[in-house]
């Protein structure tokens, strides 16, 4: 990863525990985001080189020049904009609550007050958990490195609910989590959108990404990727 370009290399970081957006299969990074960034790179004449990192380390990796861009189902959020610049949005998202199959009486974030809830470190799901705790200090918030661990904790009853991005949670409850967990209530913070992050002020890279994204959308490749990964 260290050697400077013969072919131009796009150094990408992600947090590959976020199926269907990014995960590893047969030691390959796969998923919606992975296909998308490869397509963008290709459109711009780059070769994408992807590495994994904890979600909380993605923005520091950009700031410390360890990567050119980060794509990780990352929500465009005012707080993050202080540290990074985002591409044009590429996916409409939102948060959802997952609970154990038999859990009754939880329909919205308000119902989570005083409960044991979990999210992934550094995500807007974790922020939502912390907001609930601010409203009711009796709430217990547990933060995990990856959302998969939060789901496992839910399965074994260590917590009452997980707050996480809809598409990912949906993927989970309809595969491994089937029969053990379920989604409740409506998607909230529904104006949430994913963007690709670059180091703040890196205009050149931001242009490359935006330009590539446009091309990929125009060519129909984007829809193809969407169909491939996102179930409705």
């Amino acid at each position: 990863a260290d050697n400077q370009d013969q072919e131009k290399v796009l150094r990408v970081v992600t947090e590959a525990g976020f199926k269907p957006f990014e995960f590893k299969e047969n030691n390959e990074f796969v998923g919606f985001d992975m296909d998308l960034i490869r397509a963008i790179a290709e459109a711009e004449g780059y070769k994408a080189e992807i590495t994994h990192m904890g979600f909380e380390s993605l923005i520091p990796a950009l700031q410390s020049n360890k990567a050119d861009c980060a794509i990780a189902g990352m929500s465009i959020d005012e707080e993050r904009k202080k540290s990074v610049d985002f591409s044009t949005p590429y996916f409409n998202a939102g948060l959802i609550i997952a609970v154990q199959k038999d859990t009754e009486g939880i329909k919205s974030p308000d119902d989570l007050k005083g409960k044991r809830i979990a999210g992934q470190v550094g995500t807007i799901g974790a922020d939502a958990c912390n907001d609930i705790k601010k409203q009711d200090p009796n709430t217990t918030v547990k933060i995990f490195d990856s959302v998969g661990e939060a789901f496992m904790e839910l399965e074994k009853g260590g917590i009452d609910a997980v707050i996480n991005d809809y598409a990912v949670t949906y993927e989970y409850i309809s595969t491994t989590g089937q029969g053990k967990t379920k989604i409740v209530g409506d998607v909230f913070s529904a104006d949430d959108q994913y963007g690709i992050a670059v180091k703040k002020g890196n205009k050149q890279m931001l242009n490359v990404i935006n330009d590539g994204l446009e091309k990929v959308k125009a060519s129909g490749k984007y829809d193809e990727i969407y169909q491939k990964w996102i179930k409705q």
Partner: protein
Amino acid sequence: MSHVMPGLFGINFIQTLMEINGLKLITSNLDVLLLGALVTLELTALAVAFGMILGLIFGLAKLSPQRRLIYGIATFYIDFFRGTPLFVQILLLYFGILPMFGHVGDFSAAVIACSLNSGAYIAEIVRAGIQAIDKGQMEAGRSLGMTHGQTMWYIILPQAYKVVIPPLINEFIAMLKDTSLVSLIGVSELTLRGKLLYSVSYNAAWVWGTVAIIYFIMTKLLAMLGDYVERRLATE
């Protein structure tokens, strides 16, 4: 803060250090981190305490190879927990094994994992400590007509504890650092609190620097305590 000239160490370094935001970040969150350090200490103390019980049992078991079954179990226990990363042990126990026994809270699970790990190391310390006592002591005890157990209890262990205490303090220090891994299962100790602070501030140098310093102070104090105890024991 500027990272435009990554090569110019001096300038960047000073900029980083001077950065008022970093300092503010730390001063306004120091209480949170220090409370985490308390959790770290509590967890460490519990783990080493239980580890000592396990270590005494399995250390003695390791000294009686003639009792095949007990010796075999002790060997497997010690080898497994010394032979695999605590990282993996914690995840395996918390998400894989403990759920089979019903719900175990994260702190309890952390104590269990760390105790089991510590017990394996302490067992080796106990074994080595007993073996360090001159064989002549056991012989003198036996030649007076005391049984193996009596000699162990009245003669060997009271001497071995002096040999055992310095490495035990080292184990305590090692465990203090290793508890950083229970952040993986969401126990809100120093490292997890550092990680959460980092995940909102992205300021690695300040956050991890501060966390490192807090750990350093804790281990240094423990080491000094250890030196003091060792000196006391030596002059006794």
